[in-house]
């Protein structure tokens, strides 16, 4: 799925909450989950540029040079430069040492907009001289109304390590009594006088006068490998523009194939119909969930009444398709009961049971259609089938 940047027309039309595609350039308008606060559009898998804007700097006075065999402590500053005045949460920071990530202990988590937090990175003993690279990776989160999006960023700096050049001389001075200046006392002997001479910039650790910004790069591979975003086992990501297809629904109870989350970022499931009816159905759903009698084909009212008007949402969070429970009447994913407001990622083959304990009445199974590293299509299969959608 190719992604192209938004145009000015997209920004203009994004203000209308009901617009899913730009009427001028056809670009899908994917809004930040905190669009009401930041008013920003986001990429299919990227962070909101207004909500997630960390800035990493080396503090002034830091020493970035050392001698071989020494450890180095680099003081760093992490600043939240969000132009939308949104806070960020730092989930973890680690120093990459080869293929191993050594976590850095943090005593804080939240950084408000414009605020700074300080931490220190300690290097292991730098044995060999030359230039050493210190790589950091951090996981930053943005939260809004019970949803949390995590993103990983990496940064690196170099440390110049100088080798102390010293030479030792084992010299023996033979003293002859006749030539000594000791006042005519005849004596002779050998003096063992070792000499050690150090060359070079001994202990010359240059300190920074000003803060030095470190560019932060998005670490998508780290996110996938560490399970921060996407599906770790399958090695795929579900973009925010993933298309949905519905099977087993009656006509008019589900969107047409290829529906996306572009307009509101969610797909609402519940008992309410899909049409706006003043007075009776002011909050329509995207997918209507009603139980039907298998024999008569009529609505099974007792079972249907066990489904809330707005039962749950399907959302894409952290490149994973998730179920966000809205009902207080109970909801099951496989056999796990969900409380209202609980967010559970869906794996391929998972089954959502809207009526807890009654999967024979109504259950929804999800299947993923993947291509190279990406989930292109998600099939929602209703059981028992109620008709063609």
């Amino acid at each position, binding site marked *: 799925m190719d992604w192209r940047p938004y145009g000015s027309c997209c*920004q*203009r*039309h994004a*203000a*209308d909450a*009901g*617009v*899913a*595609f*730009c*009427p*001028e*350039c*056809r670009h*899908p308008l994917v809004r930040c989950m905190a669009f009401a606060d930041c*008013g920003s559009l986001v990429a299919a898998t990227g962070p909101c540029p*207004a909500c997630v804007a960390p800035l990493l700097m080396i503090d002034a006075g830091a020493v970035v040079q050392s001698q071989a065999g020494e450890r180095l402590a680099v003081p760093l500053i992490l600043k939240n*430069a969000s*132009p939308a005045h949104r806070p960020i949460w730092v989930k973890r920071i680690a120093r990459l040492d080869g293929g191993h990530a050594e976590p850095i202990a943090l005593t804080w988590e939240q950084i408000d907009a414009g605020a700074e937090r300080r931490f220190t990175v300690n290097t292991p003993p730098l044995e060999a001289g030359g230039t050493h690279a210190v790589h950091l990776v951090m996981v930053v989160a943005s939260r809004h109304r019970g949803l949390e999006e995590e993103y990983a960023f990496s940064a690196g700096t170099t440390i110049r390590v100088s080798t102390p050049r010293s030479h030792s001389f*084992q*010299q*023996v*001075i033979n*003293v002859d*009594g006749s030539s*000594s*200046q*000791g*006042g005519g*006392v005849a*004596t*002779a*002997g*050998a*003096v*063992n*006088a070792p*000499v050690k*001479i150090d*060359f*070079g*910039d001994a202990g*010359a650790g*240059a300190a*920074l*006068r*000003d*803060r*030095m*910004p470190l560019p932060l790069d998005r670490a998508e591979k780290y996110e996938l490998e560490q399970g921060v975003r996407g599906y770790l086992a399958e090695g795929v990501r579900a973009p925010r523009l993933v298309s949905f297809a519905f099977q087993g629904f009656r*006509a*008019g*109870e589900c*969107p047409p194939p290829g529906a996306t989350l572009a*307009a509101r970022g969610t797909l609402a499931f519940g008992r309410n119909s*899909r*049409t*706006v009816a*003043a007075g009776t159905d002011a909050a*329509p759903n995207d997918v209507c969930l009603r139980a039907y009698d298998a024999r008569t084909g009529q609505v099974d009212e007792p079972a249907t009444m066990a489904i809330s008007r707005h039962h749950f949402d399907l959302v894409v969070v952290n490149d994973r398709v998730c179920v966000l429970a809205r009902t207080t009447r109970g909801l099951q994913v496989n056999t796990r009961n969900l409380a209202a407001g609980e967010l559970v990622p869906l794996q391929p083959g998972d089954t959502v049971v809207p009526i807890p304990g009654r999967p024979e009445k109504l259950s929804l199974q999800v299947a993923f259609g993947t291509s190279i590293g990406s989930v292109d299509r998600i099939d929602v299969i209703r059981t028992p089938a109620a008709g063609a959608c």
Partner: protein
Amino acid sequence: MATTHITLSDDALLGEYVRLDDVKGLLEQRVAIGPDLLAMLIKDGQIAQAAPGGHFAVGGVWRTIKDALAGAHAIRLLVADLKPFPVSKTISALTKDAVEILCELTIELQVNPERPANVLGLMKDHAAVTKAGVLTRLAPHLAERVVNAAVTRVTALELRGNTGLQDKLQADAMAEVERMAGDVGLLVRAVTIDFGTNEVEQARILERQQTREQETLEREFAILNRSIAREAESNIVQLKTALDVEKVKTATDDELRRMILGNELAFIDARETGVRVQEMKAIRHELAKNREERVEGFTAQLEQARHAVEMARTGGEQRDVQMDIAVREAKQKVAITRIDGDLRSVTREIDQADTQQRLALQKLEQLQSLEIAARAREEQVRTMRDLQGVELDGERGHLENQILGANAAHTRAMDERRHAADTELAKMQMARDLSEAQTLAITAGFSPAVANVLVERARGAADADKLALMREMVQQAKDAQVSSEAQARHFFDSGMTGAVGVAHGVGTAASGAVHMHGSLSGELGTIECPGCHVIIPVTDRFCRNCSRPMRQ
């Protein structure tokens, strides 16, 4: 009778003819030859005897008379050494790694004692055969065919102690000698080659010698160092000074050095004093050297630090510029966000105004509906009260009013029949008032409102064509599945004006039409997306709900 022992006249000889005339005399002489020598007696050109050792009688009166009377026999005596004898020859050869070597070839030869007569093949008529002469004859062949052929296959360092090489040389030499001199009574008992020291071996010997010398020196040096270290560790320096002892104890190295140089502090042991003076000189030298090097180092560091300062200053200015750019970008973003916010607020105000207007209209409609419902309820209540009154009156005089009740029931039945007849009559009157075109539309299954639209569209045509036009429009409307007045108007408006888009979807809207844009519904300049049936502005190039292309 005297006996004479005959041997070889020289040990270097292998064989020689003995002159019997020298021992022949008037008296008979006995000639004896030891068993280690071959005694070959040749009489009148024939070998009379050939055996190791022998005993002959030579001369004598009788034999002299006999020789004088009958003639003397031609007798020759050959004596040859039957003992093994070594001969040596120095041979030069070239090894596999092109190193010239000298070796001494030693061959243990022997006249074959089993066939001693064959030694005649070696003998010369007028001279003796020496052992060296035999080697002279064999040496050229052995040197090239045996020694050089074998030595060129090994390197210079592989010659010494090489038993296999020696065995090969011996075997080859035996075969070669057997080939050349086997039939003349020579055989080889042993062959050995002593190799001289070649250049490679000499270099190796020299190297090892130097290594051993170096190891010896290092060992002695280590022993000396340990000795000096032990001495240094065990030395107790005694100082003599007129100053305060506590002050001396707390003095720094430089102060102690100054005190020693100023003779304020002296070593009691003169030997120690001399040593310390030398140490001080050496330390001063090293300090001076270190100072110079340190000054040079500091100078270099200073230059480096100045360079770093300049780099940092330049970097700071660069960062300032970057920060300025970032601030400007942030300000621009903030301005854009503010403009977007204003735009959204204006949009929201418009939406709110639309919503308020819609709500007001809905409220008005609801009030009208409520007023009508209230009037209907009042009428119903009044009717019910009348009925209740009638029922109460009937109950009061149940018996008296049975007839009246039956009459009333009859009256109501009659009223219902009359009402049905009136309704049928009204329908017939309405059908009478309908035009032929309206009748055509209504019979086609359209509602009266749609039929009116069709009649209205066909009104401009001539009377003759009106009916045909009406039929055509009815067929088009049926094909388009027009179901409402609005769809009919939109269908025929678009057909006349050529507007694009609406005709594709009119009448096909599914019952599951999704979220409508309330602010756009019913407004002028809007169309319905044929894909998702959402009302969108006619200016949209793509549907804002499903992204379907709307116009080219």
